[in-house]
């Protein structure tokens, strides 16, 4: 038995199961969970607790409004994760970290909050679907399909509607925006 199994024994089975699922999905998408297993399992325990409390994976490190529409940008994985992992080596919670973080090349402590102040004050406000977030195609090009963008990882899909789950970061359909 490895030390890792001992740590797992102190957590509920649903927490351990979700931990393994997130670990697998992270690797598939080119991300890394924090290798400090106890720290990470505690955060996953927080996600499980928040799923029960709010009905979604509210960020364990941010106070929830308790309404999904207001909290959607900080449902895990949040819209700020990728930029934070690139700039600071870790997401806001340090659930997702970079290779540099794992190698100990960046300080392992809290990072600044990237979420815009207006969302912190009043909750997320969704861009209207009638106004695509991207620039209009040059020369008035007419696209045969609308383009949908995953707001977590930036994956683009040209199809009638967004995919049910992002194939890169496993974010759900409601995290997509009309891009073009």
């Amino acid at each position: 038995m490895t030390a890792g199994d001992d740590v797992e024994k102190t957590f509920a089975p649903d927490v351990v199961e979700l931990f393994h699922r997130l670990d697998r999905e992270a690797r598939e998408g080119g991300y890394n969970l924090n290798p400090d297993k106890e720290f990470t399992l505690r955060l996953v325990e927080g996600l499980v607790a928040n799923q029960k409390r709010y009905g979604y994976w509210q960020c364990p490190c941010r106070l929830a409004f308790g309404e999904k529409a207001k909290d959607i940008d900080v449902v895990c994985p949040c819209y700020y994760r990728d930029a934070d992992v690139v700039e600071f080596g870790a997401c806001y919670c340090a659930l997702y970290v970079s290779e540099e973080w794992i190698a100990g090349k960046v300080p392992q402590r809290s990072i600044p909050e990237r979420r815009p102040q207006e969302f912190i004050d009043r909750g997320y406000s969704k861009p209207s679907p009638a106004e695509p977030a991207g620039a209009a195609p040059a020369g008035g090009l007419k696209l045969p399909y609308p383009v949908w963008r995953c707001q977590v990882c930036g994956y683009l899909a040209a199809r009638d509607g967004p995919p049910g789950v992002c194939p890169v970061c496993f974010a759900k359909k409601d995290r997509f925006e009309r891009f073009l």
Partner: protein
Amino acid sequence: MGFVRVDGKDKKHKVVLYALSTCGWCRRTKELLVEEGVDHEYVDIDLCNGDEKEKLSTKARELNPRGNYPVLQVDDRVIVGYDPDKIREALA
């Protein structure tokens, strides 16, 4: 829920921690205060209800308008986030 008192030998400062129960950096901050033997009190705002939650989150926002946690108050000084060097310096 409300505030939890943690006794410690070091009573030099008035130390109050505003935290979230599910936050890893909040937990690290709680552990640091215990390791350093600091007499303090903390509150997990996400575990509070109704008026108490509103009152405490408003207080934390007065100390830190960016709204992130943990918020540590050492006398009149406010330290946002888990930053062991800054925390130890404030507690010195």
